[in-house]
C-alpha cells in the first residue's frame, strides 16, 4: 500500500506498522520464528513479501532465522528478522557475527516480561541492556526504539537506513504495548521516503578489498554473485577478508568496528524533546512509557511543575552528550521504565552524578500510567 503515490492514512497495529515500514525501506527478505508478541510482523510479511518479489521463510528456530537473515543480506537483499526476549537471547551469537562481518540487517525485538518465559503477553523494557551487551566480545551496536505505530513505521525505515549506511546490524526494540496497539499511521508517498542503499564496489574485482575502508571506517561489501569474489569470516580478519593471527591487525579491526559507530554518533543519535527549554525536571522515557510521560508533562505543567520530556529514539549509542548538556540546567531527572532501571544507570552516568536521577520502575507487566509519573514527579521535586 505504501507503493501508491500519495500519502495514505491507515489504522494499524505497531507490529504491522513495523512490517509496512520494512517494506517501504526496501526490505525484501524476512526469516523468523514465531514468538509472542512479535509474530504479527512475520505473519504480515508472509503475505506481503511474495507479492513484492520478496522472500519470506519461517526457519526452524531463531538461530537459523538470524543466520538466514545474514546470508540473504550478503546477496544484497535488505533483510530483517523479528522476535521477542527468548528468541533474542538465542540470536545473540549470530548478531555478533553480523557485527564482526559488517553485514547490514534489522533485528526487531518486541519486548515482553522476563527473565525466561516470564510474562509472554505482557509488555516490558527489560532487554535494553541485553541489546547492547548480549553477544560475546567487544562490539558496538545501534539500537532504536519507538513509541507509537507511526513512530514504529518511521524507525523501522531508519533502522534499515542506518544499517545500510554503517554496514552493521541494527536492533529495533519495541514493547508489547507499541507492538499491539492499533492506531492511525500516515504513510508518506514512497518517493518522499529517504532510502539508503548500501554502496557497491566500483573498482575492478582484482583491486577490491572488502574490508578496506576509507576515513568513514565503513567497508563496501559486494553482493554475492556480483563478480567480486571475497571471503567473509567471523574470525578476526584483515582487509582482504581472510583470517589472520596478526595481533596488531586484530586490535585495529575491533577498534574500527567500535569507532565506525562512535565516530558517526552525531548522525545516528536522535531524540525528541518536549518542553525542555525551561524544564526543572526531565522525564527520560522511551517506548510506550514515553507516551505516558508526554501526558505527564502536560499534567505537571497544569500543576505548575516545569517538567520536560527527553525521548530518545536511539538508545545505543546512548545520547550521553545530549543528556549531559541538560544536567547543568535542570534540578533532576526521572526515568520511568518497565524494568528495574536499565537506562536510569546510563542517564546517571551521562550526567556524571551531577544531578539526582530518580527512577520509577514497574516489572509486573502493567504499563506505567501518566498519573504514576506525575505522582513520582511531585514526590521528588
Amino acid at each position, binding site marked *: 500500500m505504501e507503493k501508491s503515490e500519495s500519502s495514505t492514512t491507515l489504522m494499524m497495529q505497531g507490529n504491522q506498522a513495523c512490517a509496512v515500514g520494512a517494506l517501504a525501506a526496501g526490505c525484501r527478505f524476512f526469516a523468523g520464528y514465531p514468538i509472542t508478541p512479535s509474530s504479527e510482523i512475520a505473519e504480515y510479511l508472509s503475505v506481503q513479501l*511474495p*507479492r513484492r518479489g520478496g*522472500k519470506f521463510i519461517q526457519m526452524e528456530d531463531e538461530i537459523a532465522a538470524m*543466520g538466514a537473515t545474514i546470508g540473504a543480506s550478503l546477496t544484497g537483499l535488505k533483510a530483517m528478522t523479528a522476535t521477542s526476549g527468548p528468541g533474542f537471547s538465542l540470536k545473540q*551469537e549470530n548478531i555478533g*557475527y553480523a557485527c564482526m562481518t559488517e553485514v547490514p540487517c534489522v533485528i526487531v525485538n518486541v519486548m515482553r516480561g522476563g527473565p525466561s518465559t516470564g510474562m509472554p503477553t505482557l509488555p516490558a523494557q527489560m532487554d535494553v541492556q541485553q541489546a547492547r551487551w548480549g553477544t560475546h566480545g567487544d562490539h558496538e551496536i545501534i539500537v532504536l526504539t519507538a513509541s507509537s505505530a507511526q513512530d514504529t513505521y518511521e524507525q523501522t525505515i531508519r533502522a534499515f537506513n542506518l544499517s545500510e549506511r554503517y554496514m552493521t546490524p541494527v536492533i529495533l526494540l519495541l514493547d508489547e504495548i507499541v507492538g499491539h496497539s492499533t492506531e492511525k499511521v500516515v504513510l508518506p508517498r514512497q518517493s518522499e521516503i529517504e532510502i539508503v542503499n548500501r554502496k557497491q564496489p566500483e573498482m575492478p574485482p582484482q583491486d577490491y578489498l572488502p574490508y578496506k575502508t576509507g576515513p568513514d571506517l565503513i567497508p563496501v561489501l559486494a553482493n554475492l554473485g556480483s563478480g567480486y569474489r571475497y571471503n567473509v569470516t567471523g574470525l578476526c580478519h584483515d582487509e582482504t577478508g581472510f583470517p589472520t593471527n596478526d595481533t596488531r591487525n586484530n586490535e585495529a579491526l575491533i577498534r574500527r568496528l567500535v569507532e565506525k559507530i562512535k565516530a558517526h554518533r552525531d548522525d545516528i543519535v536522535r531524540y525528541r524533546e518536549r518542553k525542555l527549554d525551561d524544564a526543572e525536571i526531565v522525564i527520560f522515557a522511551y517506548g510506550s512509557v514515553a507516551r505516558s510521560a508526554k501526558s505527564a508533562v502536560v499534567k505537571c505543567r497544569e500543576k505548575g511543575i516545569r517538567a520536560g520530556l527527553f525521548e530518545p529514539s536511539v538508545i545505543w549509542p546512548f545520547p550521553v552528550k545530549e543528556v549531559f548538556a541538560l544536567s547543568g540546567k535542570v534540578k533532576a531527572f526521572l526515568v520511568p521504565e518497565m524494568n528495574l532501571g536499565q537506562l536510569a544507570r546510563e542517564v546517571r552516568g551521562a550526567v556524571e552524578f551531577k544531578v539526582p536521577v530518580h527512577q520509577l520502575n514497574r516489572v509486573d507487566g502493567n504499563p506505567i500510567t501518566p498519573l504514576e509519573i506525575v505522582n513520582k514527579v511531585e514526590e521528588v521535586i
Partner: protein
Amino acid sequence: MFDYLKYIREWNFPHIWCSGCGDGIVLKALIRAMDKLKVSRDEAVMVSGIGCSSRTPGYIDINTLHTTHGRALAFATGVKHAKPELKVIVVTGDGDCTAIGGNHFIHAARRNIDMTVLLYNNYIYGMTGGQCSPTTPKGYKASTAQYGNIEPPFNTSGLAIAAGASFVARTDVYHVQQCEKMISLALQRKGFSLVEILTPCPTAFGRRNRMSDPVVMMEWLRDNAVSGRKWENLSAQEREGKIQTGVLIDVEKPEFTAEYGKLMEKVGVQK
C-alpha cells in the same frame, strides 16, 4: 595434470590442515568436479561453519562464507532463498553438521532446498583437539571419551534420507575418483544433495586410536569403504564393520526455491 592453481587462493597456501589430513583431498575433488561441470566461480557460493573442514572457504577462489559453528546450512538457506540463481555449496564437519548443527541439517533436508552439502566425516572434532562427535564409533577413544565412547553414532546419511533429502551419497578420500563422481552428481541435482565423505584425521582421531599414521587411516578406508555392487553381494556378517558407499538415494522431489517461485507466480508479483 589438472591446473588447480586457477581455482585456489594460492596466497593462503600451504593450508592449515595437518599432514595427511583428508580435507585437502576433498577440496581437490570438488575443484575438479566444478571444473568439469563448468560451474561459474562468480555464481558459486561456498558456506561453511567452524571446524578444520570448515576452513575450506579460505582456499577456493569462489564466493566464500565462513560462518558460525553449526549454522552453515541456516546461512546457506538465506543465501539460496534470496538469490536462487547462485550455486550453493556447503562444507561442514561431522560435529558442525550433526552435533550443534543437527537441527539445520534435518530442516534443510526436509525443505529440500537446492544446495550441495559436503559433510567431511572424520569421526571427531578435529579443530578443537579430538573430542567425541556424534559419528565417533562406539568404543573408540576421544579426548572426552578416554575410556572409549559409550554412545552409538548417527547413520548420518540415513538421517538425511529420513529427513527428506532427495540425493544422498557416501564416499571417502581413498576412493578419490568415486569421491569426485559423487560430488559431481550432487552438484548436478536440484534439491538438497548430501555427500558424506569419510576422511582421515590422523591428528585428533588417528592418534588416540592407533592410526596416527595417515597412511594407516587411508588403508582403513581402502579396506572398509565398500561401494555399490560389492556391498550388495556382502552377507550381513561380512557387512559388519564395513561401510556402504556410493549413491544411497536419488529421487525427484519439489525443491524449496522452485516452490516459492510458484507461490510468487500464484499471488502475482506487483511491481
